[in-house]
């Protein structure tokens, strides 16, 4: 009998409350997505080439898991509280019929466990489907093409998901039961605690509102104009101002709305006054939740835009070649000509790269006459450091670099006899690339052997060797004859190999590289591969984008659920008001319109502050501590951000629509019950 009732109640909860059940499923998906990170294709590959970095990330996962657990707890708690509040009368009835409180609570616990089981049965397959999708998308985003995809099922992840979810559910239920335990039986038959609307001192709330706006503006100012060097004290002041400002803003907003309503209400008709007072009441009684939700939404927006830009930034460094092989020509040829390898190789060519001969050094570090270049640099803001360290020690033969460009499908250089091009592999290192580009656009030159060579007004930055760990601060790309004259070692530095597109398309880049990798390793030849070179790079892509986007979406979901459920809970507590309105002659369509308007305004109040703050936060992020890589155009980021914002707004509208429908449905039932 007892368990039959538990099962029936749990089923009724699920059917009657999609929002509650949806929140539970979201919690499961959130846990599994995070915990199965290690089982994803990209991470599995990375673990073979960058085990240290991956190990560090995996070490970080428990912390992120704990953070998620903390936030998901709120999600589940509000969902359960909403559910429990709607069943108060039922609980009261059980108690009046002689059920012991202990038995009532154990019934609730078993119901929770039963619901957990059903949620897991639905949530886990959804999560699995989602992680598989993410696995494929991340691999594509990281520039790996279609890799050999394996179905990944992480038993550890499932175990921890189940543990985390059940723990969070039981903890929420425990807190709710403790509150119910302190409730008098008669109170179960009321509609719950409604914080009564008291008149708030206008001066106090205005002061809070003004102080909140002031602190937020201070935070924006600090972020946009004073955070250049990422000083800790500015950062701390910014965070304190931002958080305190948001809380004070919402603390004062209720009083502010009250003043507005009082001024406006004599001229309004219909349910305007009621709608406005409902919103004001919710703002006053839930100003803390509103502030927290707004901050969560801000964090969500910041995390998602950071994640997306990191993703674009890293994947923008395109693949210029697949292997750099060192060793004797014959030995290399022997491997490359092997059956099975030969068909996979599109091109192989020697790379001519060398330190400049001793005779060309003007002092210990500096070869060539860079006076004109320094002069051009001086006109660019922020170039002091670069001028101080400016040195060119390397030269690259034009033909080698052209071959790289050709293989990438780019236009070749075609240098004139008196022309040279500047190469650097660290263009994305802070402002280096941007400043250097600005300088060489001013028709500057470099002196070699007392002859001034014009510098091509575009910076060359495609990788000349497969291993990204080898960096070239600055080198000159010069015509081949000049290279032969300048180079200390005029022979080939290494042999670069590009794999054929067909092989990559057919096998996936990862497998194609691994196959050639194995052959080279077997022949005992020293080599670097693109994939091992980008291992770390890829790692950052995955780690930064994945984790930040994950946290962003999690914050977003929680903020929305908190706002939605908080509203629905308060609506349920004030249900009698809608009954009164009906009795006073309000028709159902206008009551439903009022409810929808209340929800719209309520969400907009939270979203508006989050959106304004997020514009400031994103601006701060990209001006202060996250530089867009040189290869990424601002317009791409703006288009992607606009697309992301559009998706954000679309999802918000959809979610608000769901809450509106739930609220309208509940209100429209009032008439039916009263007019049986």
């Amino acid at each position, binding site marked *: 009998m007892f368990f039959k009732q538990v099962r029936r109640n749990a089923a009724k909860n699920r059917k009657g409350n999609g929002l509650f059940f949806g929140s539970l499923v979201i919690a499961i998906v959130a846990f599994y997505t995070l915990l199965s990170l290690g089982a994803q294709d990209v991470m599995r590959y990375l673990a073979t080439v960058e085990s240290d970095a991956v190990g560090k990330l995996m070490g970080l996962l428990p912390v992120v898991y704990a953070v998620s657990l903390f936030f998901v707890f709120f999600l589940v708690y509000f969902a359960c509280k909403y559910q429990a509040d709607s069943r108060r009368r039922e609980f009261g009835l059980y108690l009046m019929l002689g059920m012991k409180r202990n038995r009532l609570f154990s019934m609730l616990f078993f119901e929770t466990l039963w619901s957990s089981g059903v949620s897991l049965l639905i949530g886990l397959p959804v999560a699995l489907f989602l992680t598989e999708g993410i696995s494929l998308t991340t691999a594509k985003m990281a520039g790996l093409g279609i890799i050999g995809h394996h179905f990944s099922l992480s038993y550890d992840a499932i175990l921890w998901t189940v543990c985390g979810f059940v723990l969070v559910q039981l903890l929420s239920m425990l807190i709710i039961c403790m509150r119910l335990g302190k409730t008098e039986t008669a109170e179960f038959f009321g509609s719950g605690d409604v914080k*009564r609307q008291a008149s708030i001192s206008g001066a106090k709330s205005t002061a809070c509102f003004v102080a909140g706006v002031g602190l937020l503006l201070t935070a924006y100012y600090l972020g946009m104009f004073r955070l250049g060097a990422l000083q800790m004290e500015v950062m701390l002041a910014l965070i304190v101002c931002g958080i305190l400002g948001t809380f004070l803003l919402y603390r004062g907003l209720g009083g502010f709305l009250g003043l507005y309503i009082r001024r406006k209400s004599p*001229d*309004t*008709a219909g349910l305007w006054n009621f709608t406005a*007072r409902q919103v004001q009441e919710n703002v006053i009684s839930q100003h803390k939740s509103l502030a927290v939700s707004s901050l969560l939404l801000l964090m969500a927006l910041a995390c998602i835009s950071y994640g997306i830009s990191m993703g674009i930034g890293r994947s923008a460094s395109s693949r210029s070649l697949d292997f750099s092989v060192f060793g004797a020509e014959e030995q290399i040829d022997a491997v490359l000509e092997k059956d099975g390898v030969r068909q996979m190789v599109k091109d192989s060519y020697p790379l001519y790269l060398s330190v400049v001969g001793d005779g060309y050094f003007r002092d210990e570090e500096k070869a060539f006459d860079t006076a004109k270049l320094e002069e051009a640099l001086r006109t660019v803001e922020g170039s002091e450091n670069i001028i101080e360290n400016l040195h060119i020690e390397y030269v690259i033969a034009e033909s080698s670099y052209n071959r790289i460009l050709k293989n990438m499908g780019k236009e070749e250089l075609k240098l004139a006899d008196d022309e040279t091009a500047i190469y650097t592999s660290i263009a994305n290192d802070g402002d280096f690339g941007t400043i250097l580009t600005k300088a060489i656009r001013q028709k500057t030159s470099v002196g070699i052997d007392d002859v001034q060579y014009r510098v091509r007004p575009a910076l060359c930055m495609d990788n000349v060797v497969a291993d990204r760990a080898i960096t070239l601060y600055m080198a000159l790309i010069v015509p081949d004859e000049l290279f032969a004259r300048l180079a200390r070692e005029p022979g080939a530095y290494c042999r670069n190999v590009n794999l054929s597109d067909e092989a990559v398309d057919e096998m996936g880049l990862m497998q194609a590289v691994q196959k050639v990798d194995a052959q080279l390793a077997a022949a005992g030849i020293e080599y670097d591969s693109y994939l091992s070179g980008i291992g770390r790079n890829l790692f950052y892509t995955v780690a930064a984008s994945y984790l930040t986007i994950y946290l962003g979406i999690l914050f977003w979901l929680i903020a929305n659920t908190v706002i939605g459920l908080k509203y629905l809970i308060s609506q349920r507590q004030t249900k009698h*008001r809608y009954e009164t309105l009906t*009795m006073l002659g309000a028709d159902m369509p206008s009551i439903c319109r009022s409810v929808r308007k209340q929800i719209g305004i309520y969400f907009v109040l939270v979203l508006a502050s989050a959106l304004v703050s997020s514009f400031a936060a994103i601006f701060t992020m990209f001006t202060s501590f996250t530089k867009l890589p040189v290869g990424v155009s601002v317009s791409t980021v703006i288009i992607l951000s606009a697309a992301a914002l559009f998706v954000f707004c679309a999802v918000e509208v959809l979610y608000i629509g769901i809450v509106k429908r739930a609220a309208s449905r509940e209100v429209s039932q009032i008439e039916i019950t009263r007019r049986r």
Partner: protein
Amino acid sequence: MNMQNQILQVESLTKTYGKGQNKTEALKGITFDVWEGEFLGIMGASGSGKTTLLNCIATMLKPTSGKIILRGQDISGFHGRKLADYRGNEIGYLFQEFELLDNLTARENIALPLCLHGVTAGKAKADIETLADLLDIADVLDKFPSQMSGGQKQRVAAARALISDPDIVLADEPTGALDSKNSKTLMNKLSAINGEQNKTIMMVTHDANAASYCSRILFIQDGCIFHELRRNRQTESIEAFYDRIVVVMAQLGGGSANVL
């Protein structure tokens, strides 16, 4: 009271709850008229059907059969807009538990029925203030219900019931949640409004004290009208009428043989 004008006619009204064997007849064909300017009381024991009767007239319940005619219109068939207009304009309802919206000030609560029908609170300002003076609530107009006493709340609710100048005010145990002092104040005010403004009031009550302010009382038992008392305001004092009510109530407890 104008005995020429019937404001409300209730004809053979029945209300049945449940079906088959669970059928309960709450009203068994009640017929009576309410005259314009009358202060009518409905009394009866718990379960006698008095609240069902009031709720049928207030359109909170749909009668099973019979007619309720207010100023010549049968209200039992009202739906949608017409129903909302009826509730907002033609009846004023006074609840036992006041049912003020606790997030609206007294002024906003009073103006609500008018606002619902397109009148702004600004336009109703003068009417609100007149009613507030009449009911002695002028000093709480800008306060929220949580800042008022029970008596003030019920008087604000009365102002709300009267603001749209309804044809009839329906009151369901209006003194049920008040102490005797506040009950007396409220009944004095209602009685004054009835007498001075010729406002028709129909009140369901258990309280003989409250009922003694009425001009006529219908006693209901088991879904039927069982007895009727009339008071001549000019010749009979409230106290004397109270004594007669108490006698009928005592006899009601003993069954119909004692009364008829």
